[in-house]
């Protein structure tokens, strides 16, 4: 695993942990967590701008 992949993975874990915390606190819904996890899983398919847009779509309100 190269350095970039390691960093990627750390970001994935950090994001996943963060959104899980929000879910545990009741600040995001079950569906929102599901969608955001799916987005994180497929993060390589999106450019940073697209990723941000999709993230905003999930939390539109």
């Amino acid at each position: 695993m190269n350095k970039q992949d390691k960093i990627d993975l750390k970001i994935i874990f950090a994001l996943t942990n963060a959104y899980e915390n929000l879910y545990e606190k009741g600040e995001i819904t079950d569906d929102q967590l599901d969608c955001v996890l799916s987005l994180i899983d497929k993060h390589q398919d999106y450019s940073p701008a697209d990723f941000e847009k999709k993230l905003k779509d999930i939390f539109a309100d």
Partner: protein
Amino acid sequence: MAILEKDYRQQEFQLLGILLQYPAKIDEVADLLEVKHFLNPHAQLIYEMLLNQYQRENQISRTKLFLQLKKDGVIKKPEETIEHLTSGFNTPEELKPTIDIIKKNFQQELLVKAAHKIEQLATETDLDISEYQARAQELVFEATSESTDLEKHIYEMEEALMDSFEAYLDRKHNKVDVGLRSGFISLDNLIGGFKKSHLNVIAASTSMGKTAFAINIAKNILMRNVPIAMISLEMEAREIIDRMIIQDAMVNGWKYTQGETNDDEDKRISKALDDLHELPLMISDERGLNVAQIRARLRKFKAQMGGLGLAIIDYLQMIKLPDNHVQNTSRAIGEIVLQLRNLASELELPIILISQISRSFTSRQDKRPVLSDLRDSGNIEEIADGVIFLYRHAQTSAAAREKTEEEGTEKETEIIIAKQRTGQTGSIKLLFEEDYISFVDPENISLEENMPQ
């Protein structure tokens, strides 16, 4: 053993790594690997989680796996584990060889466990040698019965068509035996012979001639030098051979057993002994055998004779049920029938299983047996590949006997093919010669009459 365990971990974690890096590959893997195939407990746990995700959502997710591992707590540092799994340079091309190794490891492990159990079994002093052998064979069978190549059961259309077409051409050119001919032309014309790997049930109520019919078929087939094994759970081996002698010599059965045959008949008996003595037949006449013991014997016979063309088991209701059957006898019998069907596949031969049917149908207007009469016997009608009923109207009541004697039809026996997975259903008529305890096919007689002398 330690080296082997390390190998398990390496291959199993490599596979999980491929899955996490190429999640779409779960479609292939889920069809080929079950949780039990993983020997390392951590790899097993992770694969089970992924498989559950796949079953629920049709896809797998690395992030969800991470959260689940955290929640589960069995694996202490999920981050490190996932990092470790995805750290190797894995390619999708490595998937198939890795699956093969995992399955091979699993099968080796099964054999090792079976060996340990057999070793333990040898210390049990309350088993006689045949029970010991049967249990040991059972353990080895269980350890080796898992298919090594699941893909052999999956065909693309073109492949399946080619298979079918080749088999069709072979049949057209008589290259393959389309089924083991019973020797009764009418029956063979209808069912096309007994097919390999098929379980055929011959069922009738008492006194219809089930055993006589099976012995008749056996004798017809033996005459063509096809090896046969008979598991007789009621009749002694000598009685079976006596029946064959009576049929072959065409002497009155009662006179034969009473020693009252005349010189002419004695000559025919002597010739029958000559005809029969080299035929490839093995008989087990021990009563109270269970399925495992039957399996062990048939395997042994097959090995001893260098192959078997047919096995006959007489009869289902005499097979010893497992000790815990009390709650549901019908289910236990169904389990036995299923095991015998699997045995036919394993040994690659047709098995004829004789079964009694109760007289519950006697209240019916038409007393011919039907498939539902077998329902009390563990759903034989669903499991067996073929079901043949014997029905002799003359045997149903004293009045029926008188009436058929008046009509001259008392010998008539209907052979009802009620189920046939690969042939036709329907019925034929044979004649039962009580004197010789044998069946005669009018079709055979007409053929013999037309043979050039």
